[in-house]
């Protein structure tokens, strides 16, 4: 099977602008699931609202295009009902970290087995280029005509503090590596966060004089600094974490965390359901014996 066999081709070409990085991420995601050889019927994708969220319309798996910010919560219900299904949630940066921030940190805390892809274009694309939680301090958006006055979120640090067990960052320039990371993230049994820096040439690029799609991707290429191998606990080394804070002009990329921790559905089944069912059936047997 080719990656494009996962496309609902009759809905192509897609709605994204020329050069929009979201299509590169979709391609990498299709490549990853093709490589993993998972049945289409065993994959559920949920998304919120945004340019990024429209990805789902084009992918031939079970797709649920939900509410702005809430995709992880919908996906949580799907996963609880069918823990055997593979669940992937592509989100915009506003979707994931502003309106959906609460769901994001709690899904990470639960370590529920799904893959959150944060498609970070540093802006609200769908609504026309307002500033987002990842717009850099001093950068522009239609609602920041004088530049923003706040620090952006660092998705990797946020996911780390919240307890995600697989955390990575990559960019649309690094498309090949992105597909590999996404496959790794989907395979990981726990909550995986993959932040992909992507270009919105139409709004963020234009407002901030970052040039066209090619120039924006060149910046990803030139600023990217790969993190070194993880330590024995599956965590990035202190030096790498420091590099992550160094300056805006460095973009640390790679896998920052990959550790095996109790997964929510599995832990709930073992610690709660199995003993409760056993106790209930023992009680029923005892009651039956009395008659």
């Amino acid at each position: 099977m080719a990656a494009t066999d996962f496309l609902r081709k009759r809905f192509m070409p897609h709605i994204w602008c020329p050069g929009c990085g979201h299509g590169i991420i979709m391609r990498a995601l299709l490549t990853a699931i093709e490589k993993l050889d998972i049945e289409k019927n065993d994959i559920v994708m949920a998304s919120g609202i945004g340019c990024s969220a429209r990805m789902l319309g084009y992918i031939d798996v079970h797709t649920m295009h939900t509410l702005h910010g809430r995709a992880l919560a919908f996906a949580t219900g799907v996963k609880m009902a069918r823990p055997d299904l593979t669940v992937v949630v592509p989100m915009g940066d506003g979707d994931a970290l502003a309106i959906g921030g609460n769901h994001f940190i709690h899904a990470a805390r639960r370590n529920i087995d799904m893959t959150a892809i944060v498609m970070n274009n540093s802006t609200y694309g769908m609504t026309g280029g307002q500033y987002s939680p990842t717009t850099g301090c001093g950068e522009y958006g239609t609602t920041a005509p004088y530049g923003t006055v706040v620090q952006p979120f660092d998705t990797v640090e946020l996911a780390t503090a919240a307890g995600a067990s697989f955390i990575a960052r990559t960019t649309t320039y690094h498309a090949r590596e992105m597909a590999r990371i996404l496959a790794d993230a989907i395979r990981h049994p726990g909550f995986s966060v993959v932040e992909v820096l992507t270009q919105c040439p139409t709004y963020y690029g234009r407002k901030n004089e970052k040039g066209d799609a090619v120039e924006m991707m060149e910046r990803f290429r030139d600023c990217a600094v790969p993190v070194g191998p993880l330590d024995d606990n599956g965590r990035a080394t202190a030096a790498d974490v420091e590099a992550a804070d160094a300056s805006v002009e460095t973009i640390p990329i790679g896998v920052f965390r990959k550790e095996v921790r109790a997964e929510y559905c599995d832990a709930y089944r073992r610690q709660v359901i199995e003993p409760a069912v056993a106790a209930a059936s023992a009680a029923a047997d005892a009651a039956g014996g009395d008659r």
Partner: protein
Amino acid sequence: MSTSRRIEVNPDWCKGCNVCVAFCPKQVLALDERGKAYVANIDACIWCRECELRCPDLAVTVVVERAS
């Protein structure tokens, strides 16, 4: 056994963003007068697939056919 390879660009999907052209390491691709990508110099191609992976519109396919 012989292997035939080619690069296909789907003009209905291509939006002319120039990404494939700019990042091809061997200058194989170019934009035509309509602003659509086309294969200008296939002999230089090293079949690295960077164009396929980076095209935001999934318009480029590197086709490899093996015939024995």
